[in-house]
């Protein structure tokens, strides 16, 4: 191993990246764009659900009920309609997601001491929004109903009726329930995977395809130096990306950072190293760029995006997929990132994850170097 040769390979590789605007955009602009999108534009938070009101009853009682919805930040009443047809049309066109229908004899029933009926029609296509929205509607009606009962009870001399049980919900780690607080840190994993899958996996395949590998082999550069040199170039890019992600997350989006920065740094380096070695491994295995790209996408970017728990919680997936996800290093890394950012937990909680990352990285590094040796020899 010679330091000068290593440096030369690294420099050559960096020049390749800087010279092609696409690589540069992929390596630096893409992560930034995803950060901005996930930070500003993309959210799973449910509020201001567009709603129609169909007040069949038109009495002070029914209006009072509707006021409860109007006052909630979760619903925006777009319009009042007079029949089911309009509701159907609105939901079909997706101009509203929901409609409140107050039944015809709502106030009559209430005054008679019976239950007044309210119907909620919900466009269930997006089941996630629907469930959360229905939950909010339920809570509003429940609270209002309890108040009505209590008032009636007092009037009849039965004494005040209190809500029997009040849940005090407290959300830990992410008290405002903002989706960006958990998605933005997870982006570090996805970004590093872009570098590994799309840039690294092509680098050696390109040398084969262009025939420059033979030239490299005739120089005194050894396989291990070649692998390490290329790794170093992409590693520095990855570190820059990681830094950008962390800084933007903490300072621009105010994502809480509760854990140890050193722990995060150390595990990111491990993860990055493993991911890059995987890229090199692919690239040494298949000789064409097209195939290298396809394999890179399928084996590193997509799993990091889908199976890591970055957006979609792993525990909700079918059992088989959960088992597969154990083989996805990004899964362990995303747990670490979430733990460090939101939970502020330290070594003792995340050590197992880190150990697996280390094991993965060393295994893949060994495989990559071996593969290179075989190919070259």
């Amino acid at each position, binding site marked *: 191993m010679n330091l000068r040769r290593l440096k030369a390979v690294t420099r050559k590789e960096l020049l390749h990246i800087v010279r092609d605007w696409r690589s540069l955009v992929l390596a630096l602009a893409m992560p930034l764009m995803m950060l901005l999108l996930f930070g500003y534009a993309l959210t799973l938070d449910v509020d201001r659900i567009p709603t129609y009101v169909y007040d069949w009853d038109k009495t002070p009682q029914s209006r009072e009920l509707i006021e409860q919805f109007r006052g909630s930040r979760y619903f925006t009443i777009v319009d009042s309609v007079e029949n089911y047809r309009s509701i159907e049309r609105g939901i079909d066109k997706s101009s509203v997601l929901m409609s409140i229908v107050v039944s015809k004899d709502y106030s009559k029933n209430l005054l008679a001491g019976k239950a007044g009926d309210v119907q909620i029609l919900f466009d269930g296509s997006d089941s996630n929004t629907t469930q959360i929205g229905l939950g909010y509607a339920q*809570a509003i009606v429940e609270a209002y109903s309890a108040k009505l009962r209590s008032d009636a009870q007092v009037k009849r001399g039965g004494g005040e009726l209190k809500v029997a049980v009040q*849940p005090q919900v407290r959300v830990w780690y992410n008290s405002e329930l903002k989706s960006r607080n958990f998605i933005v840190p997870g982006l570090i994993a996805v970004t590093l995977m872009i570098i590994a899958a799309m840039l690294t996996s092509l680098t050696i395949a390109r040398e084969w395809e262009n025939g420059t590998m033979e030239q490299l082999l005739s120089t005194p550069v050894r396989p291990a130096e070649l692998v390490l040199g290329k790794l170093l170039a992409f590693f520095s890019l990855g570190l820059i990306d990681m830094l950008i992600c962390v800084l933007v997350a903490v300072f621009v989006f105010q994502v809480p950072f509760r854990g140890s920065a050193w722990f995060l740094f150390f595990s990111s380096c491990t993860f990055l190293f493993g991911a890059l070695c995987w890229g090199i491994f692919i690239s040494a295995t298949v000789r064409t760029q097209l195939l290298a790209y396809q394999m890179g996408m399928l084996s590193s970017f997509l799993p990091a995006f889908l199976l890591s728990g970055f957006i*979609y*919680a792993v525990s*909700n997936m079918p059992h088989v997929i959960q088992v597969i996800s154990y083989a996805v290093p990004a899964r362990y890394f995303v747990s670490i990132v979430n733990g460090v950012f939101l939970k502020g937990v330290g070594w003792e909680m995340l050590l197992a994850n880190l150990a697996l990352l280390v094991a993965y990285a060393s295994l893949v590094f060994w495989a990559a170097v071996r593969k290179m040796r075989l190919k070259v020899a």
Partner: protein
Amino acid sequence: MSLKRILYIIRKEVRQAFREPRMRAMLFVPPIIQLLIFGFAVNLDVENAALAWVDLDHTPQSRDLLAKFEGSHRFELVATPSSDAEISKALDSGTADLVVRVLPGFARDVLRGRTASVQVLVNGSNSNTASLVSTYAAGVISGYARDAMDLQAKEKLVGRTAGGPVHPATPSVNLQSRVWFNADLKSRNYFVPGVVANIIALVTLMLTSMAIVREKEIGTMEQLMVTPIKPLELMIGKTLPFAVVGIIDMGLVVLVARLLFQVPFRGNILVLLGASICFLLTSLGAGLFISTVSRTQQQAMMTTFLFFQPAFLLSGFTFPVRNMPEIVQYITFINPVRYFMEIVRGVFLKGSGVTVLWPQMLALAVIGVVVMTLSAGRFHKRLE
């Protein structure tokens, strides 16, 4: 323009695509694999939230509440921590999605008609799961509260009226919710049609740009140019086969969605076909454009990714367009994937027809024609 020459190119293109077994597989296998991965992995439902139960009251009432939680089929009891440290650990390590703490005096308060409180600690690290979990928990608790109040109301009235038992009628509001289009509230029904839209976009974009750039890279483009084939003919001959592949992939993917994932298909397949053709206009046009700015296949792939990733994220696939800031919503107006996504979901789940979906189809057609014209112009110039 000569039809014969176009047919020749199509024949050449089809032969090229089908000659190699690997290439043949590439046309149809990746879309299915992607549908499978996406279809199984992309899921925002919460089934069996992991519940940790802390009972500091130890009364029949508190046990009753636990039974209500377990009976709701939404929760699975995973732990009964006995100290604050254990509670933190359950949440920190993620073994529990929520901890419910029944405080001492719970039963006393419920029986005396005071408001008892129950603490619900939710693991918020995934905000979406947390929202669902706390909604479910609140639902169970308010159900319990309603029953308790019924009892209270009866007791209080009966106790105070001298003339014997009265009819304990109190007004209340009864909420009936009805969910349209996706009554089981499965997020798979929402996501799988979305995946269909994405896959068609990616496959056609990729294939077109690669097919043209490959000719450049190997140097056969020069050979094509010395033949009497005109640029426009070349363009049509190059894109048409991939349009057909796109349509076949579409059918294949819809079939898998229908049979394997059991996603309802309520609309008319012809509406979907028409919309797909409009959409293919844009994706093939974009593919052509990418081929004009790329010299190597590697560049073409990267550029495809650069185009596709933002289009995918801004399509409303996972993150509703409705939630985006207004400026970003305006940007999505020029995103063809957004319209196609709305159409595919509308046709699958709502059974919508042209009367409802015409604005989206019109938008697609307009974008398609614009993109196609621009790319064709650029393609033409590049060749001359």
